[in-house]
């Protein structure tokens, strides 16, 4: 029992110690976020909140995450319904092709998109970053939706059609509400992935950037408790999103 508790403490320590240290030194009263801890101040948090570039990047990140996740969810949901309907020839191949990008590195996807956007003559902006995030999150949303759709949904859809529902009504009034927890989980997971994503956002943005890119440029000028402060804010937002996912799924059990 004691050994178990000790093991658990070690494990959680291993996972959460870096985050705890990061958060702790965002309150460092001094110029360097390194031990020893000299005293408690909210100076760096103030500095973050009054930094217009950082705040703009935070708003950009939220916008890109929300919008790209909505699009990825819609695409993933439609694709999952089509594959689950069973009347699609080559459904297995389509399923494999849709989920395969999950295993491709973000760097490769980012470089590929950069080349494609150049070819198409599209200028880099937050919109291109959002497109990149739709590309990485659609397979994820598809996989989650496809796992949630099964015979009960198909039977209910059939009954809805029998009672006179049009296809969009079947989707909006029957299918989507039946798998709402999965849709919510897929959306929030997409938001967290987009929120944290650096390499694609870095490659596909120019003047307006997302938060991870802004933090990266901040880091280039050396370590500073301000980076810790913004880091803890980022962590807080991600943690809230993940917590919401767990609540969404557990509430239904």
């Amino acid at each position, binding site marked *: 029992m004691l050994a178990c508790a000790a093991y658990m403490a070690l494990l959680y320590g291993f996972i959460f110690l870096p985050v705890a240290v990061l958060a702790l030194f965002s309150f460092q009263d001094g110029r360097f976020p390194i031990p020893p801890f000299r005293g408690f101040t909210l100076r760096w948090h103030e500095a973050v909140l009054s930094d217009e570039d950082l705040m703009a990047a935070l708003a950009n990140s939220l916008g890109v995450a929300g919008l790209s996740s909505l699009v990825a969810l819609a695409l993933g949901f439609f694709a999952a319904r089509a594959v689950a309907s069973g009347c699609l020839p080559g459904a297995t191949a389509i399923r494999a092709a849709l989920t395969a990008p999950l295993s491709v590195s973000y760097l490769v996807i980012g470089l590929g998109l950069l080349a494609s956007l150049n070819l198409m003559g599209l200028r880099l902006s937050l919109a291109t970053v959002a497109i990149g995030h739709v590309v990485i999150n659609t397979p994820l949303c598809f996989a989650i939706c496809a796992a949630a759709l099964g015979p009960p949904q198909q039977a209910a859809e059939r009954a809805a059609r*029998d009672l006179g529902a049009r296809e969009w009504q079947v989707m909006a009034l029957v299918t989507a509400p039946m798998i709402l927890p999965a849709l919510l989980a897929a959306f929030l997971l997409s938001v967290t992935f987009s929120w944290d994503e650096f390499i694609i956002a870095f490659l596909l943005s120019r003047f307006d950037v997302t938060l991870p890119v802004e933090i990266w440029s901040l880091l280039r000028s050396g370590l500073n408790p301000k980076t810790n402060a913004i880091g803890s804010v980022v962590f807080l937002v991600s943690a809230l999103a993940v917590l919401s996912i767990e609540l969404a799924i557990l509430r239904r059990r």
Partner: protein
Amino acid sequence: MTAPIEIAGLTRRFGATRALDGIDLEVPAGAFCVLLGPSGCGKTTLLNIIGGFDDPDTGRLSIGGRDMIGVPAAQRPTTTVFQDYALFPHMTLAENVGFGLRMRGQSRARRAARAEAMLDLVGLAGQGAKRPAALSGGQRQRVALARALAVEPDVLLLDEPLGALDLNLRRQMQAELKAIQAKVGVTFVHVTHDQEEAMAIADLVVVMDAGRIEDAGPPERVYRAPRSRFAATFLGDMNMLPGRVTGGRVETVLGPLGDATALAEGTMALACIRPEHLSAAGHTTLAPLTTARIVDAVFQGTHRKLTCLGDSRQGTTLVAHLPATAAAAPGDLLTLSVDPEMVTVLPA
């Protein structure tokens, strides 16, 4: 609101198997039609085609005189009670029942009133605010029925609706289905593999096998004078005595039997007798058919089922249902007789 169904020359293939192989059927408006047959006989395929969930390869289907081929399920005057109920789990019972009316653009108030009336019809009055998860299987079945009837279809399709219920509940639901059908007057097409269920509720029994209709008619007629060998045996035990048609009768090992005037002289035929139409001497004034030795006697509550070996050179096995009070033990000799009216003749 009710309508007749007319089906002609309907075929449906799945790969090499013929799920439906030339179906001709007319169901009058307001009838309670039961499609009866073993699994794989094509009855569910036929129901799916009537409901618009599947298309036939060839043939015609019309409901109320309107051609239905190519018309999607949503636009047919049919609704379906599915085997797995297929209720909407995220909606209340009232929302479930009112769903079809919502799709027809009816106001919230009218939907609520109609849902309450339909729930009342199926014996779930005042439970509209519950969710399907809070109900038992039998209750879900009722909600599915109310939901399908709420839109006032001309034809209601029922896909083995009682298959998942236990025997007592099943018998009770059969009686209720029959009563509800009489009340609403809608044409019902009900699929089952349970012959007792079919005979209990049908106005028109359609016996199917291997994609073909073996017999169709009122249950009494189909049971007593089936038109095919399959229909005869599927509806219950049947003694079948082969013989050649001679002088308008079937010349069996037990003597000439039945009325075979419809068959050509000299062809082979079967004289068919239900076990309950065989009676023992002492219980009847009929002429004796044969003496037989009892091989096996099984008490079945309402009757005693006897397996006997007929007194003939071929040693024909006969199954007879005698009153439960009849004293009969294996080894006993018995004189069996039959009412000639109750002998049915089928071509062999």
